[in-house]
């Protein structure tokens, strides 16, 4: 089942954030709450699926010399679409994600998958790859956002977890910029321990 393999690759084994360290900017910026993380993840996944689909479909038509500009135009088209749809239907989310919606264009994951996978593989496996990568990206964002929202606000997906006593004096730094860097540093350290354990067991 190679299709299944394409689908699951991005979720853990080649997770774009924890393993490949791609797409860091939106990842660090929008993980202030789980809600933002899910919104950003959904937007990026949609763009990823559409662009992988179209790039894969056109892979024999696009001359290889101008392929990067072509990919950028394809990606930018879908980003504009997402931008307008979100502005119309979820204006609050659109406002809190701010400039990171247009910046999906320069998200290295999307261009990376178009260039590294979709231009050499058939449509079905490219879409499967895009779904896997998108879900992996979203899950990674939810992990970091959970830590940040819980520590910095005492809530998870706007549901109060740690009680009002904590919410009155939360660990505010987790929601501020430094919290993203420091927590991500520890999460990456945790993954490298996992990796080492697995390597040692072999």
């Amino acid at each position: 089942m190679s299709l299944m393999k394409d689908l699951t690759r991005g979720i853990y084994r080649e997770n774009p954030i924890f393993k490949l360290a791609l797409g860091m900017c939106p990842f660090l910026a929008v993980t202030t709450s789980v809600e933002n993380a899910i919104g950003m993840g959904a937007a990026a996944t949609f763009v990823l699926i559409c662009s992988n689909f179209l790039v894969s479909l056109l892979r024999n038509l696009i001359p290889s010399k101008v392929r990067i500009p072509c990919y950028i135009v394809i990606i930018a088209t879908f980003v504009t679409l997402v931008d307008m749809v979100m502005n119309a239907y979820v204006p609050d989310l659109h406002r809190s994600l701010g400039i990171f919606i247009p910046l999906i264009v320069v998200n290295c994951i999307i261009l990376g998958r178009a260039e590294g996978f979709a231009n050499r593989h058939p449509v079905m496996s490219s879409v499967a790859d895009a779904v896997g990568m998108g879900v992996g990206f979203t899950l990674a964002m939810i992990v970091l956002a959970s830590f940040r929202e819980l520590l910095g606000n005492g809530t998870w997906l706007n549901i109060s977890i740690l009680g009002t006593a904590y919410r009155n004096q939360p660990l505010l730094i987790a929601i501020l910029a430094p919290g993203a860097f420091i927590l991500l540093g520890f999460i990456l350290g945790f993954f490298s321990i996992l990796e080492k354990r697995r390597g040692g067991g072999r």
Partner: protein
Amino acid sequence: MSGSALLSILISAPETGNGGFDLGRMMAIIIAAIFVNNFVLSRFLGICPFLGVSKQLDSALGMGAAVIFVMTLATLGSWTVYNLLLVPMELTYLRTIAFILIIASLVQLVEMILQKFSPALYQALGIFLPLITTNCAILGVAVLNIDEKYSLGYSLVNAIAAGIGFTLALVLMAGLRQRLELADVPPALKGKPVAFLVAGVMSIAFLGFAGLGG
């Protein structure tokens, strides 16, 4: 359109129409872009080059110079196209596509011009230029300038200051990482994790600038 009319359009703010420079506001923009809202450490723009090119002080400086250069040109191009082409034709929704194309072709053009006329500079900046197209700081500053409705003058000031802020963060990080090579880091945190921790500590330091310059 006469030359002076064109000039007044370029200098005045697109929305309010009031021309001229306000030195206080300009200083506020500069300080905000370099310190308070530092592109890397508080806005999270340009993290990839920040981590990728911050191992050596020399390459950090080269990357910083290339970013300042391209940011200024990209702002000039994107602001002009947006306000003189997209707004009059009511095509503002094409902003993202237009900007990324401007930036990509500009980087290509700069690369070709440098190669032709200044091989020394090309040697120094050349390897960083292709990376810059997908640097979100460049598109970020172009989009921010439009969102903030800055006039062309303020936009350029903002772009240069943002580039300086980016360079500052990059150079500081490079200095720290050169020291870090000699430090005794726990094996699990070697490489990227400790780089993020260091960036976090730097970001805390930059929080101290909050409130400065209004």
